[in-house]
């Protein structure tokens, strides 16, 4: 850590000598150890020794940023020179700013050191458990890694933040497979701060392995209708992120195209929906502790009981629009669970789908989405009837978030957030 502190201090001295009075820099070093399996066999152990220095300067209201991996004395000198020249020809903009000073802070979270033998053992256990419980599932790849990271952030207003984090990332890609018959891709993953329990019990891994096996026999839907769609936590999370990007992201607030531009304090979604960004939640593994602007992070409510509470306003957007900046740039999503058990939500569906994933483009500010329902099951008369293929779902995000008919009491937590099952009305379901 002292080496990083020295590097950051060198940057501070060089920029100050160059007459730059507004700046921020981050010096970081990390080590990643990653085990890979391919088609059930251990194939690769990968180690990445990494480092990075990023410097942002503001000179007469003009802003520029540079990044590099060369932390030698010569590398740091060159990076500082590039930083000083980067704002040339940039327009002056009074909204360019550095966050106010927050003093000296230190953050430590997660598990600092990799345990490759233990990780290998947990992966081998996962392979065996999956094969025993879900024999018709073929695990194509598993990437299991430990990351260890140290960072120093320093800005011209006196903030100095040191952080040390360590965490495990597990991600799987798999299919149902029976002879030549295969399902589509399924993905699962989780972020962990220890290896104290079997991986098959973490996140949505077991749920999706089961769904893959049950998806082997699919039928096409021969019709188009408007119906109810229950989204699994993973799929609901996808749609919520699309909603945030289309309606709340800083870019659509900045250019004024968001349909929710001036709706803070107004109802934009069903009353049963409350969601927030919570990097400080104890269930969030190595969540953000300071924003890229330099604020100390806070949890931020986005929608409470259907009412819009905040938009994704960073420091620049706040300066440009007169709105208040939120102190969070981490998308750790928490959706408040409902009071209705999942089984009851399924029973409420006359004709609709249970959808595990969505393959479609980003909707844009219209919020119109159109894409393929992945890992999907048909629901008829309150019962899950079977897996379907080649089904598209279409609609508008604002409409469906205003038509939430069920939020389950059960949730799934994967170390980056916690989300229930959510049922939406008003989605056009098109079969072949």
């Amino acid at each position, binding site marked *: 850590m002292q080496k990083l502190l020295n590097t950051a201090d060198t940057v501070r001295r060089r920029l100050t000598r160059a007459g730059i009075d507004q700046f921020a820099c981050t010096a970081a070093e990390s080590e990643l150890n990653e085990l890979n399996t391919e*088609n059930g*066999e251990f*194939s*690769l*152990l*990968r*180690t*990445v*020794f*990494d*480092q990075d220095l990023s410097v942002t300067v503001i000179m007469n209201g003009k*802003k*520029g*940023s*540079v*990044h*590099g*991996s*060369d932390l030698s004395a010569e590398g740091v000198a060159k990076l500082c020179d*590039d930083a000083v*020249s*980067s704002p*040339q*020809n*940039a*327009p002056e903009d009074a*909204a360019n700013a550095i966050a106010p000073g927050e003093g000296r802070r230190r953050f430590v979270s997660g598990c600092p050191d990799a345990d*490759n033998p233990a990780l290998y053992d947990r992966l081998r256990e996962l392979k065996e458990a999956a094969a025993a419980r879900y024999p018709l599932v*073929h695990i*194509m*790849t598993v990437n299991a890694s430990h990351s260890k990271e140290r960072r120093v952030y320093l800005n011209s207003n006196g903030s100095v933040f040191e952080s040390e984090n360590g965490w495990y990332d597990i991600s799987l890609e798999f*299919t149902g*497979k029976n002879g030549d018959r*295969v399902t*589509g*891709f399924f993905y699962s993953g989780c972020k962990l701060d220890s290896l104290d329990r079997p991986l098959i019990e973490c996140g949505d891994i077991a749920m999706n392995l089961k769904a893959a096996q049950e998806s082997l026999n699919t039928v096409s839907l021969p019709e188009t209708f408007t119906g109810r769609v229950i989204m699994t936590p993973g799929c609901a999370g996808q749609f919520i992120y699309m909603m945030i990007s289309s309606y709340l992201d800083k*870019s659509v607030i*900045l*250019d*004024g*195209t968001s349909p929710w531009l001036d709706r803070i304090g107004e109802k934009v979604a069903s009353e049963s929906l409350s969601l927030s960004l919570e990097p400080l939640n104890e269930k969030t593994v190595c969540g953000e502790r300071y924003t890229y602007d330099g604020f100390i992070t806070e949890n931020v409510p986005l929608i409470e009981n259907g009412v819009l509470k905040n938009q994704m306003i960073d420091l620049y957007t706040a300066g440009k629009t007169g709105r208040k900046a939120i102190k969070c740039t981490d998308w750790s999503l928490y959706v408040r669970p409902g009071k209705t058990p999942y089984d009851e939500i399924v029973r409420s569906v006359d004709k609709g789908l249970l959808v595990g994933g969505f*393959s*479609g*483009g*980003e909707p*844009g*500010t*219209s919020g*119109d989405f*159109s*894409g*393929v329902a*992945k890992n999907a099951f048909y629901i008829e008369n309150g019962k899950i009837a079977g897996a379907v*293929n*080649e089904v*598209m779902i*279409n609609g508008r995000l604002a409409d469906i978030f205003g038509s939430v008919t069920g939020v389950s009491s059960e949730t799934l937590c994967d170390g980056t957030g916690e989300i229930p099952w959510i049922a939406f009305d008003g989605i*056009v379901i*098109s079969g*072949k």
Partner: protein
Amino acid sequence: MLDDILEGKQALFGNDAVTVLRGHENRTRRVSLLNGDLVTNTRAENRGVNAYVYRNGVYGFASAAEYTSAAAEKVLRAASDNAAFLSARASRETKTFCPVPRKSIPLNGRISDTAQARLIETCKTVDAYIRERHPFLTSRSVTYSEDSQDRMLYTSDACSGHAVTPRCYIYVSLSAETGDGTPAELFKAFGGFGSFDENFGDPSVLFPEIDRLADCLKQKQAGVYPKAGMHTVILSGELAGMLAHEAVGHTVEADLVLGGSVAGPNLNKRVASEMISLTDFAHTAFGKPVPLPVYIDDEGVAAEDADLIRDGILVGYMHSRESAARFGAAPRGNARAWAYKDEPLIRMRNTCILPGKDSLKDMIAGIDQGYYLISTNNGQADLTGEFMFGVTMGYEISHGQLGRALLDTTVSGIAFEMLKTVDAVSDRITWESSGFCGKKQIIPVGLGGPDIRCRIMVGGR
């Protein structure tokens, strides 16, 4: 550009392993104006070295974010240790890689740098033109994006070489409102392989295309949603290229074949109309350089074209050296990595459906009711061959004539079923290369194709 500090390290390669030592730099430049405000102004250079060791059927990889002699030795040791850790615990059949020519691939060009001030000035010039000429817009963005790669590698039993892939683009995105106040958007990417000066020395050459984009957006403002369902459509070359990449290309990457893709049981069988042939080009197609030429991959294999579909028959896959050994095929240089911290994966390069003989005019005239779909902004595909891609610009076709413009929609299908419905293929090729393919790592890819007429599922209202 990278200096050669690696050649002498070959003496450190283990005798019982296949080893690749690679120096790699990624250089990025980004300037973004949103309604005239500069919201992004960044420069980055990330340089490092890695070693990739294959021993006893498993791989060890290690990388460092420094390009020095000491770092090269460190990663060679760490990669070897990693292979040893894994092979002591896991048994995996050792494949004997087929011999590849051992030669030195010469440097294919240079990466030149442009001052950030000039990048900003060019974006401001383009932005000012749009603001003055097209006041009907509700929003506009102009983004310059450059991501150049510089790679140097030495191998124990394959080629060595030094290759550069400079590329830069200006993305123009325009927004307006439809009659009911809903946003309508269109974007276009300008640029390609080469330096800033080669692509944007005179930014005014972009202006006619920007005017055409704005005209299309005006038509889209009055656009309609297509009817959801199965339709006869013409996919433009841009969409045919996306199809080639997403719907076919991924399923014939050998690692996905081993994972159970639909291509596995279909080798040497008919998977498309006999009008369809598809190749993953290395560096040259139809007598010209392809958008993103590859001369040597990141396993040291000299790059050659990979034929995938010929006259509707699936004839081959894309390979790494290991998968080629598993299938008894020859590797063609498809093992690529994005950054110094990345191991090579089987990736596409410049995937293209070959042109036919039909004219687009005749193809449109041959449709009673259908659609002409022109631009896309993304696509995804599945192991089963199920694909989707977003369509951002298109037109109705009625009685052989183009009609109203379309609002955003999506098309989907099962590749090897849809391709059998192709009944016309145009005689011109459109290439696209501004995006990235994602698969554990991003990688730049080129994709191309002619206009093709087919039956496809269209999402709508």
